[in-house]
């Protein structure tokens, strides 16, 4: 074991909220050695971010922290919870740096990025003027920002999420810290960008010889990135081991459950003679970006001519990074968006139908969206949400029949029918997603568009929702169009996969074939970035 750098002993964090006390971190102890990478793993609410934020005393004022955090820094061994604020400020950004989950909002939007990085140098080093500017350019080069001389005078809004995270890393590394705390630094990024940032961090770690405390919920990252792992749950460390040990022989039930929650299993193939349920020819969607008087409108082509055939009982997975047009494609197929090209559903040509003639068809093609918090009306009870479609499509049903159908649908998604009196805010993310699925199912659809239905959920919850979708598909011979950026989930659910990039299909084919021997370089990159190339 390397020399200890950071020792956390019996850390406890409480939040005082409106006369109540929330015990976010209960009793956390761990040690991080010099140059080591330790991963703090856990699901939302496990206290992993709070623990790591407590190290630099960056928690909000209503948090109270107890225990001890020993830091072996430039001044020998000190206890960080009791050092003066002046000393704490000398440590922040200098001996210990931190990068965060939200690259889009973590930079000051009104300041040039070069200046924001230089501020750290001003604060902690003697570099000034030209020398400081030179160092910023050098840092930008190291973190892989193209054209660094020009980029220093950019504003954050001119940069992509990945580039902003690179700026954050440059800022964090400016003073060559001994420890970098990385709080879910890649969660908000596309998978190929995530892979680039992770390898950047690895390279810089070697170069600077720093330790990394890596907070994540993603076991795939942990497996490839960390030396040791602490698994957290409900504010406590339930297991801590080297990465190899942890994955080979997890001791704690919760750890085992987390590892099992990684998507697994494969979709059973459908009969080749299964009828075609939906077909699209040369589907195109364009959005007007800028409408101007007397001048041609500027357009953005979100979907640029896609052919797609979906058979009954099939799951077609659409993968791609943000902005690839996958959600737009899904919505255009259901005619939720204006498009050009042909769309056939069952025996009907949807292309020229107006909204009133489409309406009766809508009960047979339903949709479940990503955001389980935003997509359910907060002012309606679960019963009202689920039954609303029934009232539109089946006005002949009596009140009693409606309630029965709602109860049936709720049971299908393993929710207690008595819950129909309650409001969405009383439910967890996973339960809400079940409500959204029940809302779609109550109309007995044949085709379901699932737009990132599991992306906002913790892995363990995600696993149960995936299981539910599988069961429902078998029971009702449903056809799914499954949109996701998560290749592992798509691999577990889909018969065929369509890889999209910039509104076009890069590659499509049978799921297993595509994952085993991708033809296109972009597909290979995606698969590698999701750690699916080596994983068993």
């Amino acid at each position, binding site marked *: 074991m390397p020399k200890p750098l950071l020792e956390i002993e019996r850390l406890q964090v409480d939040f005082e909220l409106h006369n109540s006390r929330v015990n976010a971190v209960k009793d956390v102890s761990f040690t991080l050695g010099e140059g080591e990478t330790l991963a703090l793993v856990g699901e939302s609410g496990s206290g992993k971010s709070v623990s790591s934020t407590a190290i*630099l005393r*960056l928690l909000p004022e209503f948090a109270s922290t107890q225990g001890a955090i020993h830091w072996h820094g430039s001044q020998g061994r000190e206890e960080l919870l009791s050092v003066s604020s002046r000393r704490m*400020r*000398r*440590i*922040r*950004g*200098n001996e210990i*740096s*931190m990068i*965060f989950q*939200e690259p889009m*909002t*973590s*930079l*000051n*939007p*009104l*300041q040039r990025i070069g200046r924001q990085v230089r*501020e*750290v140098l001003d*604060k*902690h080093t003697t570099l000034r003027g030209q020398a400081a500017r030179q160092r910023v350019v050098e840092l930008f080069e190291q973190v892989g920002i193209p054209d660094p001389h020009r980029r220093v005078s950019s*504003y954050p*809004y001119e940069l992509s999420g990945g580039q902003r995270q690179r700026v*954050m890393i440059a*800022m964090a590394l400016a003073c060559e810290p001994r420890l970098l705390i990385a709080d879910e630094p890649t969660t908000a990024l596309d998978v190929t960008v995530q892979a680039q940032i992770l390898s950047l961090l690895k390279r810089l770690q070697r170069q600077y010889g720093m330790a990394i405390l890596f907070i994540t919920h993603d076991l795939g990252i942990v497996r490839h990135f960390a030396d040791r792992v602490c698994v957290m749950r409900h504010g406590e460390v339930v297991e801590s081991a080297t990465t190899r040990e942890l994955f080979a022989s997890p001791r704690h039930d919760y750890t085992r459950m987390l590892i099992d929650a990684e998507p697994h299993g494969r979709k059973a193939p459908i009969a080749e003679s299964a009828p075609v349920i939906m077909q699209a020819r040369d589907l195109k969607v364009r959005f007007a970006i800028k409408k101007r008087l007397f001048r041609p409108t500027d357009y953005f082509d979100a979907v640029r001519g896609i052919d797609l055939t979906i058979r009954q009982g099939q799951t077609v997975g659409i993968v791609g990074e943000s902005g690839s047009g996958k959600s737009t494609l899904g919505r255009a197929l259901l005619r939720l968006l204006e498009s050009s090209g042909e769309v056939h559903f069952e025996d009907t040509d949807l292309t020229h139908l107006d909204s009133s003639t489409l309406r009766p068809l809508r009960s047979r093609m339903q949709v479940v969206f990503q955001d389980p918090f935003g997509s359910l009306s907060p002012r309606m009870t679960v019963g009202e949400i689920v039954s609303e479609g029934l009232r539109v499509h089946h006005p002949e049903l009596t009140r009693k029949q409606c309630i029965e159908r709602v109860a049936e649908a709720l049971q299908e998604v393993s929710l207690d029918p008595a819950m129909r009196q309650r409001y969405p805010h009383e439910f967890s993310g996973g339960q809400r997603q079940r409500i959204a699925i029940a809302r779609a199912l109550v109309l007995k659809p044949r085709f379901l568009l699932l737009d990132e239905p599991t992306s906002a959920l913790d892995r363990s919850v995600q696993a149960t929702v995936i299981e539910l979708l599988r069961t429902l598909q078998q029971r009702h011979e449903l056809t799914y169009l499954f949109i996701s950026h998560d290749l592992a989930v798509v691999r577990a659910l889909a018969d065929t996969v369509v890889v999209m990039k910039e509104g076009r299909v890069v590659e499509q084919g049978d799921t297993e074939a595509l994952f085993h021997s991708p033809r296109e370089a972009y597909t290979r990159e995606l698969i590698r970035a999701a750690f699916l190339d080596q994983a068993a």
Partner: protein
Amino acid sequence: MLIYVSKRLLQAIPTLLIVITLSFFLMHLAPGGPFDGERQLPAEIEANLRAAYHLDQPVWRQYFIYLGNLLQGDFGPSFRYKDFTVTELIAQGFPVSLELGLWAIALAIAVGLPLGILAALHRNSSIDYLVMGTALAGVAIPNFVIAPVLALVFGVLLAWLPVGGWNDGHWRNMVLPVIALSIQQVAYIARMSRASMIEVLGSHYIRTARAKGLSEREVIWRHALRPSLLPVVSYLGPAIAGIITGSVVIEQIFGIPGIGRYFVQAALNRDYTLVMGTVVFYGILIVLLNLIVDLLYSALDPQIRYDD
């Protein structure tokens, strides 16, 4: 930038036209006319006067005559202030109103902004409660209540300051009207800057600034202040409009010879051309000031660029 400005000015034309049309017809809907008074004019003289001012024509024709004159920059003669054109009256009153308004907006910013920021930095403390309580009262009490109370207390009871008059803009005459005019805006700006400062202090980039090792003072001055000004700056447009409307009342109460006062008297006297003149003038003023506010906003926020 230049193209943007000219575009905005072009867009102001339909706005102004709507304002002119609405006020013209509303004004003529009100009963009475400029020559109705206690002293009845002989019928022939009134008929002559009406003909001279085209008042014998149908209203729609008067409207087009007015528009035609306006296009040539002619606001017409005042019906009541004989021997004065409307342009002359506005030129006389505007400097007074402008001075009053500028002081009021300056005071609103100079007092409201620091108070709001102070309250935000001491959130939920007694300072915060005091500032916000006072601000709430400031928002709630209309200026036509505040003005006479100020005049009563400081002018009559304490006799420190004059209760009215302009006296060529002597500072002693200005204190009470400026305060009465700005109090509501002080209160709004204080509440707004508090809210926006609190929001900014909770943002992710403030956490980043702290993680860099900056002191609280540096965090606030370098990273929190400018972003928290943005909503306040965008409120300046409505604030200016509020001050202009306020000045109509305040000038009347304190007997200040600005355009606000002319406006009220003109409306009461059915001095059609003077009412229209002030309305058009106010309209142009508000359009221009809003444009300036928007340009100021773009100077603060790099993401807003007016390049076409």
